[in-house]
């Protein structure tokens, strides 16, 4: 390519990208999708959503008022997970549980202290498990409180209780088991998909709808240049979104970033390219903003939310659904994000997942490039 031709190419790409950026900033729907919604998501995920329960209200039915029963009550009251309140009868407690006012009932039967002395006491704990996940969590917390109470009792009574096997557990990467640690990194998937796929799904279709492609096609601009200049501004916006989300994660929500920042930026850029490729491909195929936005929602955003492993672990899904997730780029990005944020630069995760993303970027962008021809109809 001659120097002059190269210069013309650069100039055309710059001019087109500038045009695209201006359009982006002047369009209220792109402001809503590209700025308002991501910020809303950051705030919601950072402050609003959590799978961890705190101060769970529980009713305590004290049928036994002995000091040992009182000490069980004290153990629950002292835990940050529970907020026990004494009620008079099981009937009342059941009513509160059914109404959802309390999430559990602790019942200390009248023979508790007698049985305790005999070595076979029961602490009865009932949960309302219409929210099963929360119920399971609460039950685990309760087990923890009772273990603590027993340990305390060993000390005060100078007794060793025999449990043949105990578990000594370590949770790597998220010692305090804070669900925010995996929800906030997952948020990046949503933001990148929003900016990368949903916004760009509109941009090619818009040119078709408004008839501007026709005059563009009559100029020396090359199809590849059109694609590149549509990528550049949205790529930049996506990276700004990344910066904001990562900063918010780190500073506002104190999520650790144990991997290296350059790698995080690199794989995010990679996913952004894949998302851009999907959005542009949808837009190029449909040539209609309405159909494009519908397709982008159904094909990119909803799967990124439900099937990427970001909230619901892929391991829990039946094999057929798991098979579907393999064609979703979001799946690979979530794996990368959770590793890079919480675990570190683990190349055995980074390399294969990044390789799939590279492949997908090539496929989607390549198809977009192929489908972009300077032809109408």
């Amino acid at each position: 390519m001659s120097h002059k031709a190269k210069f013309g190419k650069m100039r055309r790409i710059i001019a087109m990208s500038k045009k695209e950026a201006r359009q982006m900033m002047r369009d209220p729907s792109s402001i809503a999708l590209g700025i308002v919604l991501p910020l809303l998501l950051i705030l919601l995920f950072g402050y609003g959503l959590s799978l961890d329960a705190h101060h769970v209200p529980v009713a305590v039915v004290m049928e036994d008022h002995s000091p040992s029963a009182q000490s069980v009550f004290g153990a629950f009251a002292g835990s940050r997970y529970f907020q026990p309140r004494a009620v008079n009868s099981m009937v009342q407690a059941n009513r509160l549980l059914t109404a959802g006012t309390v999430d559990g009932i602790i019942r200390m039967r009248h023979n508790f202290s007698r049985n305790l002395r005999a070595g076979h006491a029961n602490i009865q704990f009932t949960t309302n498990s219409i929210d099963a996940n929360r119920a399971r969590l609460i039950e685990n917390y309760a087990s923890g409180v009772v273990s603590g109470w027993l340990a305390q009792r060993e000390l005060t009574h100078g007794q060793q209780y025999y449990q043949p096997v105990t578990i000594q557990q370590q949770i790597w990467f998220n010692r305090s088991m804070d669900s925010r640690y995996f929800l906030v990194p997952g948020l990046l998937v949503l933001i990148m998909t929003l900016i990368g796929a949903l916004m760009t799904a509109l941009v090619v279709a818009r040119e078709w709808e408004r008839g501007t492609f026709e005059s563009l096609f009559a100029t020396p601009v090359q199809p590849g240049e059109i694609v590149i200049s549509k990528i550049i501004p949205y790529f930049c916006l996506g990276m700004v979104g990344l910066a904001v989300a990562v900063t918010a994660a780190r500073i506002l929500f104190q999520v650790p970033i144990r991997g290296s920042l350059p790698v995080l930026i690199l794989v995010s850029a990679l996913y952004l390219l894949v998302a851009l490729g999907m959005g542009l491909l949808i837009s190029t195929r449909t040539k209609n903003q309405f159909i494009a936005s519908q397709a982008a929602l159904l094909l990119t955003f909803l799967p990124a939310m439900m099937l990427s492993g970001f909230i619901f672990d892929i391991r829990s899904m039946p094999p057929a659904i798991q098979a579907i997730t393999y064609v979703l780029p979001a799946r690979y990005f979530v794996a990368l994000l959770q590793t890079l944020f919480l675990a570190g630069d683990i190349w055995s995760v980074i390399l294969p997942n990044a390789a799939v993303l590279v492949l997908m970027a090539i496929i989607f962008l390549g198809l977009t490039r192929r489908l972009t021809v300077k032809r109408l109809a």
Partner: protein
Amino acid sequence: MNILLRILALIRKELIAIFKDPRSRFVVLGPPILQMIIFGYAGTFDLNHVPYVLVDQSHSSESARFISRMNGSGIFTCVGSAGNIQLARPILDSRRTLLIIQIPQHFQRDLSTGRQAQVQVIADGRNSNTAALAIGYLNEILNEFNADFLSSHSGGTPPPAVLHIRSWFNPDLLSRWQIVPAMIGLITMLAVMILTAMSVAREREQGTFDQLLVTPFTPLEIMAGKSIPPILVGLGQSAVIFFIVRYWFQVPYYGTAAAIILIFVIFIFAAAGLGLLVSSISSTMQQALLGTFVLVMPCALLSGLATPVSNMPKAVQDITLINPLRYDVQAAREAFLQGADVHQLLPELIPMAIIAVVSLLTASWLFRRIH
């Protein structure tokens, strides 16, 4: 009389428009059912498959007994073994396993001498919810192991008290039972809002809206004509999805028929009201679609569908009070699993009805103001 006939004509026209075109007929039924089935399977917190790497340094009959009990649970699958934890670490790092279970060298000796034996468990906390669940399952297995051991061996004082847990309404703690009934609301909300918002926007885009406005239709009649067909479609969808939930996913339904019908009806009115609100401020179908999306998104996140409302900070919990989906999710769970009747559902039904009335009134006010 005339008014009724005119509204009927509008409703008939809308329904023909929705159901005549095979594509839009599919859009009304296809995606919701597909979403229900795919996301119904995907939306679960339960683990039925926990891969672990075994670091068995004991190589004893007791450790074998422990391992076989784990493998026999049907949940735990051994995906590899390693000499020590350091060697097992890369397998966990690369996400090929969720747990590393180390049985120490003196496991058997400790057990036989009546000392407390320890099993070390390391969990991948990148998804802390999954990790907590896996450890929870392991604890259950361990408790059974201990109980068995104590019954066949003597020695030591067992703990004088145990926690005896009962889970009401969902004894096996299946998270699918919690998520799937709640998804009926989300899916129909999306469909009803999109249909309502779009049917007005489509007429605006095609210019037929002006035609409607110059006919003797009053704005209220138009609103009724525009919202009733999506409401009917939404009710139909709810019914179909209800049966999918009940008979495909086998979620038990303990509530009264009146309860579930009332939940669906009131909630769908609220959704139609929100759809009309979106439609009154959007002039193209695309704006209507994106507007619906921007509204449904936070509604879904703040509904308690995936993360419980009670885990949210107080201020955020207050915001959820205006979210109809929050009430629908709660009410559906109560009706399905708890067998709630209409009276018990009033705390959810009343706010939902208020939201429906307010959104419909606001939409009609906006409608008149704009036209």
